[in-house]
């Protein structure tokens, strides 16, 4: 199937558009069924694409048959297809949670959600830097609307900050792209990687500015240290399914750093080789530290989860800074694990909060939960996975990250920071769990809390069962991540093949 690689973009686009038209727009029930079926189809398509890419090699989809480097291309390579499969799976879990009650909070939830998924998938699949900007904007405008969805003072306030920051970020993105186009004369990522090695000394410094401006933008998206302040408030004020899908948005930033600063400005970039890495090192370690401090200081489970997202983003940036095959492979494994667990934890925080009456998910003594056993088991699973204790996926992910650190100096910096951050997360989460599950007021409760809907259970179970599964199938999955990393770090595969193969096919 040649067209499989564009399906993850087209399916949500058409689903979103159809949801606005009469037969579906009228009733929420039809929208739910249709969206869930479409999301299921997207999951199937994404996994088929994954299988195809691993069996037959990279699939370059040339839109409009404008040959690279002149037209826009979609590149379905091992790294991007894993991320697309992750997004659709996370989207399915979040959607099935939304069918409980969150979709009733306002209108157009499902179309917005579909456009959000479309933007994220597009950002992963595209092989063109300007197209990456366009998909960033698609996912951002959907996320603005989703964030404010349901209304309320807190959401509006968080959205104002989020929108203003991201609009400024978009401007910087365009400045960066303008600089790079002015000096390199191309925006096809593979072509940029080839051109960047042949630059003059006079132009190289301007190109460096462009590259670092892009790092600022991607840092903003992925919550890198001085640019992370928006994240805890935004994620904790969003409704649960929205926060869950947002868990993958910070990873879009990390992915772009791996793509642009790992491949284009990677080892073969001549004078500009590894321009971002010198900045990434200290910032990544400080991001981990600040995430841990934030986690220890969080007064509610949602804020705690949001700070853990910062922590995982920092860990991933360390991998990007290491810039070797083992680190990229570890980053991919850790990315899949941390996205799914963080998404699951946001859903779980909402479910816990609803059963605790007025206290919600804050760490205060409150009434007893109705189903403490089930929620407790899932909380324990997610906590163990996030902290990085055996037997779940977090442990394997962190071991892979630690093993990827090669020299002794790097080890001296990275190992203590990552291990101490795990200790911090352990303390924060055990304190959270104790308060949430064991300390409750003994008074007889009067009112019944709202039941947890079947779809909501399904969402939580799906996302959190991924962690044990990732640990169980760590062997085959890490083979995939190693393959993806090998692909990304081999310029013959990730750069030259994409520029020469279509012409060699004899299309002209």
């Amino acid at each position, binding site marked *: 199937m040649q067209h499989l690689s564009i399906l993850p973009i087209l399916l949500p686009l058409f689903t979103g558009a159809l949801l606005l038209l009469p037969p579906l727009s009228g009733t929420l029930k039809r929208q739910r069924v249709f969206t869930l079926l479409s999301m299921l189809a997207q999951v199937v398509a994404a996994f088929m694409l994954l299988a195809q890419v691993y069996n037959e090699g990279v699939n370059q989809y040339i839109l409009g048959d404008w040959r690279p480097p002149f037209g826009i291309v979609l590149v379905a390579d091992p790294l991007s297809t894993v991320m697309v499969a992750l997004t659709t799976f996370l989207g399915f879990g979040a959607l099935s949670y939304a069918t409980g009650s969150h979709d009733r909070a306002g209108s157009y939830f499902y179309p917005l959600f579909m456009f959000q998924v479309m933007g994220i998938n597009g950002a992963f699949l595209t092989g063109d830097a*300007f197209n990456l900007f*366009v998909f960033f*904007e698609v996912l951002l*405008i959907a996320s*603005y609307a989703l964030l*404010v969805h349901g*209304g*309320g*003072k807190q959401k*509006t*306030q968080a*959205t*104002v*900050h989020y*929108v*203003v920051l991201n*609009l*400024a970020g*978009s*401007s910087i993105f*365009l*400045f960066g*792209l*303008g*600089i790079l*186009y*002015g000096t390199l004369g191309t*925006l096809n990522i593979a072509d940029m990687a080839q051109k960047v090695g042949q630059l003059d000394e006079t132009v190289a410094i301007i190109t460096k500015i462009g590259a670092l401006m892009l790092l600022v933008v991607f840092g903003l998206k992925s919550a890198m240290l001085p640019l992370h302040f928006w994240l805890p408030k935004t994620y904790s004020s969003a409704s649960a399914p929205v926060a869950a899908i947002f868990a993958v948005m910070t990873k879009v930033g990390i992915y772009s750093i791996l793509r642009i600063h790992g491949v284009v400005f990677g080892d073969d970039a001549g004078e500009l080789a590894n321009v971002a890495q010198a900045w990434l090192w200290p910032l990544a370690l400080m991001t981990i530290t600040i995430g841990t401090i934030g986690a220890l200081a969080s007064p509610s489970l949602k804020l705690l989860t949001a700070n853990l997202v910062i922590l995982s983003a920092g860990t991933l940036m360390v991998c990007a800074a290491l810039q070797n095959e083992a680190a990229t492979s570890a980053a991919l494994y850790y990315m899949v694990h941390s996205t799914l667990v963080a998404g699951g934890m946001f859903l779980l925080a909402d479910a816990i909060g609803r059963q605790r009456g007025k206290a919600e998910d804050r760490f205060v003594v409150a009434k007893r939960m109705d189903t403490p056993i089930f929620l407790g088991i899932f909380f324990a699973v997610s906590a163990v996975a996030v902290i990085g204790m055996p037997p779940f996926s977090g442990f394997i992910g962190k071991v892979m990250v630690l093993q990827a650190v090669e020299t002794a100096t790097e080890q001296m910096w990275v190992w203590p920071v990552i291990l101490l951050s795990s200790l911090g997360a352990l303390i924060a989460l055990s304190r959270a769990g104790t308060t949430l599950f064991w300390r409750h007021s003994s008074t007889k409760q009067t009112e019944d809390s709202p039941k947890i809907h079947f779809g909501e259970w399904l969402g939580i179970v799906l996302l959190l069962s991924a962690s044990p599964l990732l640990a169980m199938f760590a062997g085959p999955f890490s083979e995939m991540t190693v393959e993806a990393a090998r692909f990304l770090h081999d310029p013959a595969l990730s750069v030259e093949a994409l520029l020469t193969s279509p012409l060699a096919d004899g299309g002209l």
Partner: protein
Amino acid sequence: MEGIYAFCVGLMTACGIFLTLRGRTFSVVVGLTLLSYAVNLFLFASGRLRLDAAAVLGESENYGDPLPQALVLTAIVIGFAMTAFAVILAMRARADLGNDHVDGRIPQTKESARQKSGGQR
């Protein structure tokens, strides 16, 4: 020509950044708009500034780079939509939060605190 052009872009960017850093949503929105204008001009210049150079081949001796024009068009459309959204959001925030400060509340300065306490007395 390049000098004037660069000066305009730089001035507009500076004004945009200054206004974006203000505390009220209206000036922030105006600042973002100025910033996006500056970006559009900047992108346009990334294909080099040339006189008498049509983007279509065969129309003139020299030819201009057509790609930045396409990029600018995309950037204008997106920037316009985003500005519209930011305006609506600012109005919504004004209605929801009761004031037009970006933080949702007017920060307490020394002067306003003194006025308040003076008024109570």
